[in-house]
């Protein structure tokens, strides 16, 4: 049982401290395991600080997302071998991702949040960011994909021609 008023302090990779409710951290497999490993009674307040390998700015975004999703059901449903739909991202999540400033920053922030979601083991956030990135890629031209993913083409013209030839077996 998690008591809504219980709080846990997180120390970030750049030295900041953030105190959050256990209602939010219960969605993070990493933090919950860290608390379990402390072998403290759930009633013990305050808990020792949990160090997370995430910078302060990114952690704030993660906490913002967790706050919106604090009542999501747990455990997060396991992915089944069914068709993956990327068009079911909640409106709040879409707006959350879109507000990240300039185009380049948005992509960098998205990567930082993905990395944080992976390190903190927040499945819902990882899934949402995965769909967001897939939606950015699907239906785009090769040039647009390179721009979105910030990739440099390291093929020679001959190699590109060869891959285009290989791709010709499917209708584009």
């Amino acid at each position, binding site marked *: 049982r998690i008591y809504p008023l219980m709080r846990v302090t997180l120390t970030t990779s750049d030295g900041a401290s953030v105190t959050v409710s256990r209602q939010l951290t219960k969605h993070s497999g990493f933090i919950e395991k860290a608390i379990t490993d402390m072998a403290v009674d759930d009633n013990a307040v305050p808990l020792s600080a949990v160090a997370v390998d995430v910078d302060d700015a990114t952690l704030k975004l993660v906490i913002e997302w967790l706050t919106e999703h604090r009542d999501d059901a747990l455990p997060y449903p396991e992915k089944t071998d*069914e068709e993956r739909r990327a068009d079911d991202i909640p409106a709040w999540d879409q707006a959350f991702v879109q507000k990240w400033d300039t185009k380049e920053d948005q992509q*960098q922030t998205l*990567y930082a949040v993905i990395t944080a979601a*992976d390190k903190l083991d927040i499945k819902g956030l990882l899934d949402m960011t995965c769909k967001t990135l897939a939606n950015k890629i699907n239906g785009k031209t090769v040039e647009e994909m390179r721009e979105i993913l910030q990739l440099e083409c390291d093929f020679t013209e001959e190699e590109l021609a060869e891959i285009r030839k290989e791709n010709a077996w*499917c209708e*584009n």
Partner: protein
Amino acid sequence: CTFRSNVNYFYCLIFSFNFLFINLPVNPTKMDILKLPDVFLRDLLKYIEIKDRMRLRLTCRAFEELVADTHAGYFNLGFFSRDMNTSIFMGTTRMIEIDFSDEQLEELIDRRQRLYTGITFGNFQFMLDGKPSTMEFLREFTKKWKIENISFVAHNEQQLESSLQLLSNFPGSEVSLALCFHPGTEKLLSLQPMDILQLYPTNDVPRQISVDFFFTLLSKHKNLILKNLSMLTSADWKRVSLIISEEARERSVILLFDETDVQTWLNEYGFTASAQAGDTHGEFEIIKMLEAPDENDDEIELRYRKCKIMIGQS
């Protein structure tokens, strides 16, 4: 005095260095998509359409390798037909220009290996032509495929044989087989249990399916769609309803009869033209009487224990 002065100067230098260090803007390390967790990238590629996987191959070497090294994900529909033209649909992507030569087969297998390590289809339908070259192609080309529901349409014995051969590539799949010809009793009896067996001969001279044979098929296959079935008596009809009703799993049987046969059964059970919803005769109960503007489109819904019976025009 000189010593003190040097010390001060020294302190001053240290302070200045610290000051510089603290105030220098931190050069943010630019994050690279390819440094994201491997499990994330593999998941991401499962959301990508086949044609977009192809475009991703062209972005850079790292993505070309990633595409080749990941599962393509799950596609609800797929289709193969070799008739006048060859069509293979994987999701919404259509393969083109297949000539089924040995040379091209090798080439296509190689290209497939550069596109995914595996692919899953919810439903895949094959309409085979029975030619050895098609079979050779499909046996190789579908090796990394998983199909949950596989269906075949066969118009002759050769196509049926090809379908059964290819089926051995997908031992865990649920199978639907639509036969547009009557392959003979022996062949029908030798078929493995199907999720759906459809026997819908389209030839001019219909071959009747005996009632006993119908019950044999019913005991073996989960769902049946049958045409040209000899007339069932009202007792046979009750027996079918009982079998379906007593099953724990969901089953369906679709039988195509002359309208007069159906009317005969309904009359034998006491249902007349004036029957209404709620009327019961024995354990049969009318649930719905749907009257359409054209009386040929009328539908009747009956219930026998747990079995629902729909009667309508096909």
